[in-house]
């Protein structure tokens, strides 16, 4: 059963179509990846699902009904840009957000303490938010998103700002929620996280859906054109090979995109055997990261995109 459905949703900001004819659906009890580059329009879509914005055209149905304020209590939303009241105590903050979602005060308090204990944070209950480290604040924000036990969760970049240990803890919580039958939208740029957690994905660029379906399907569409090599010896042999693109290259490793299809791999293997000692030769599907870059970057090469990315960073 589909818990959420978007049908030809359009949202204008002035003349600009921030959401352009977007349609997708999410099955109950799955983790759904809402992926796309910065400024692709992910947040605008999320804001329409959470009923902060109203779509100008099209329809959004949640739990089988047209989405409205009455559904807000059944959703949990962790926005990308986090925010808590700096001068408010952790416990009061958690209770307030839960109360806004229709939980009674006593119930909210009880739940808040349970979660604080579960995340080893019960000592912070009476501390003000401003006294906590950034990572601690993130944890509190995460708890506030799930405290009212929503059936439907929207997590926008949930793992940013966490150390690897906490990322693992949060991932296990997300998977626990899934086991409990909750439906989760995960919006992220970190493709390996999406790959680990998501059942299905939708890739958004410039307000439009450019890829839709399971990760499996997405990969199939691109075929096995991704070659990973590990070797010992002079790496200049790689320079002779035509019609490839380097995704990664070091003295002993190379990740190559084949531009002439799978058959090309055999020729490369021959050349390799003649020149170096081979430890690993692995012909794989592109990972989600690669797919993301190819889809979003259009015809641009990885190097060009990387260069652009560096340029943006400056």
């Amino acid at each position, binding site marked *: 059963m589909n818990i959420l459905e978007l049908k030809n949703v359009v949202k204008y900001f002035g003349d600009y179509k921030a959401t352009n004819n977007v349609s997708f659906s999410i099955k109950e009890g799955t983790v759904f990846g809402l992926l796309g580059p910065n400024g692709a329009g992910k947040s605008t879509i999320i804001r329409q699902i959470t009923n*902060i914005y109203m779509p100008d055209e099209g329809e959004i149905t949640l739990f089988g009904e047209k989405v409205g304020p009455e559904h807000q209590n059944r959703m949990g*939303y962790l926005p990308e840009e986090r925010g808590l009241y700096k001068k408010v105590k952790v416990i009061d903050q958690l209770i307030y957000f839960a109360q806004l979602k229709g939980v009674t005060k006593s119930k909210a308090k009880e739940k808040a303490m349970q979660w604080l204990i579960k995340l080893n944070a019960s000592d912070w209950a009476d501390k003000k938010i401003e006294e906590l480290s950034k990572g601690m604040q993130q944890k509190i924000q995460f708890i506030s998103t799930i405290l009212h036990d929503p059936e439907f969760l929207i997590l926008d970049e949930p793992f940013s700002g966490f150390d690897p240990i906490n990322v693992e803890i949060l991932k296990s919580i997300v998977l626990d929620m899934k086991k409990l039958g909750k439906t989760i939208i995960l919006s992220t740029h970190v493709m390996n996280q999406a790959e680990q957690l998501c059942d299905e994905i939708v890739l958004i660029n410039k307000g439009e859906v450019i890829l839709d379906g399971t990760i499996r399907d997405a990969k199939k569409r691109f075929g096995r054109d991704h070659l990973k090599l590990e070797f010992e010896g002079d790496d200049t042999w790689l320079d002779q090979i035509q019609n490839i693109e380097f995704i990664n290259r070091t003295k002993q490793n190379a990740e190559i995109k084949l531009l002439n299809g799978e058959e090309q791999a055999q020729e490369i293997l021959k050349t390799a055997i003649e020149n170096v000692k081979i430890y690993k030769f692995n012909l794989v599907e592109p990972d989600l990261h690669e797919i993301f870059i190819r889809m979003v970057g259009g015809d641009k090469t990885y190097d060009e995109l990387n260069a652009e990315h560096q340029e943006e960073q400056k």
Partner: protein
Amino acid sequence: MINKSKIWTIIQHEYLLKVKSKGFIIGTFLAPIGIVALIAFSASMMIMFKDTTERKLAIIDDTNMIGTMLAEVDTTKYYLSDETSKALKDKIIKQEIDGFVHIPSNIIEKGEVEVFSEGGGGIGFVSSLENNLSKIVRRERMKVMNADEEMIRLVESGVEVTTQKVTEEGTQHDNTQGMAYIGYILGFIIYFLVFLYGGLVSRAVVEEKANRIIEVIASSAKPFEIMLGKVVGIGMVGLSQIAVWIVLTSILVLSLGSIIGAFIEIDPNTLANGMSGQMAMQQAQDAKVAEIMSNVPQIDIGLIIGFIFFFITGYFIYASLFAAVGSAVDNEQDAGQLQMPLTIPIMIPIFMIQPIMENPDSTIASVASLFPFFTPILMIVRLASTQVPAWEIILAVLLQILTFVAALWVAGRIYRIGILMTGKKPKLTDLIKWIKM
């Protein structure tokens, strides 16, 4: 449509957030102590100056009776004069006398006299004259009247003193009346509180937006609910503060008598007056306390209701618009400029209080006090200093309610768009565009 439990949750949150803050506790409990200390200081100054200042007042008596009695009350202060009022006015300007009282022939019936002075005679001097005259006139009225009920009514009606200020230019109203000052103070308190709490609302909105809290809240409640909850919550903080101020100030003023009493006890001036012995001192002390108390004009319940009503409407009109402005900007620095269209209409009435106190019944005064953005401050000044016609009060109340609803609606429209707008600093024209969106 509106979810009351969500608004209530937001109200409670905003209320507790502010009430628990150090600023509120300090402001609420220390301010009355400061105010009372100031009153106590000025009251004791008043007593000290009073002891040494004697005013010489001439009496023009049209009744050929009351004036004589008044002169007998205190011969050091009053003397009967047979000069014309024009001659006496000249004497005032030449500073030969401090002023003169004109007792009209119909004083028994009308109970009105006029005092002409060089101005700024002080509340104390007027009230002691009023006391003296009242006693005499009351006595005379009782003699004239026989019917008991009528007599009582007349006795109660007392004597009203209208003071006239004499200057080179002629005679004009002298605003030494206590009630006008009360009006001034009440008007100023409304101005101050609307500014203070309107500013708090604006800051709370900006904070929520700058800290990105709004995104979470907006996914839990409607923008109008959020705004209303915030405005009401902070407004209730204001009302709590006023309540604490009223209670604390009354307690402190009541205990003020004994504080001043103690102060007078060690005042060498009293001893130097030639009185001696415990009894004399006690008497002097009691008299002074009574005098201070009589100088504090009685505030009737209607005025208190008016004050609370106009504080509430004034606060809601401005606070909701402040919330709208706060929602449009990303930080407090940007808020200042956009707030101009709000701060100016709050400040204009402050400059109008003085002229309105002097001429509370003029057409300009009634028009200005009916202008909804000025009403909260100016109407309370008029209510205190004059008898405002009932239709004007009703019209003011209706206009306030209409404006209050309109302000909430306009603010809600702006707020709804503003809270989610980030990046470029919006102009006033953008805000107007959002209302229509």
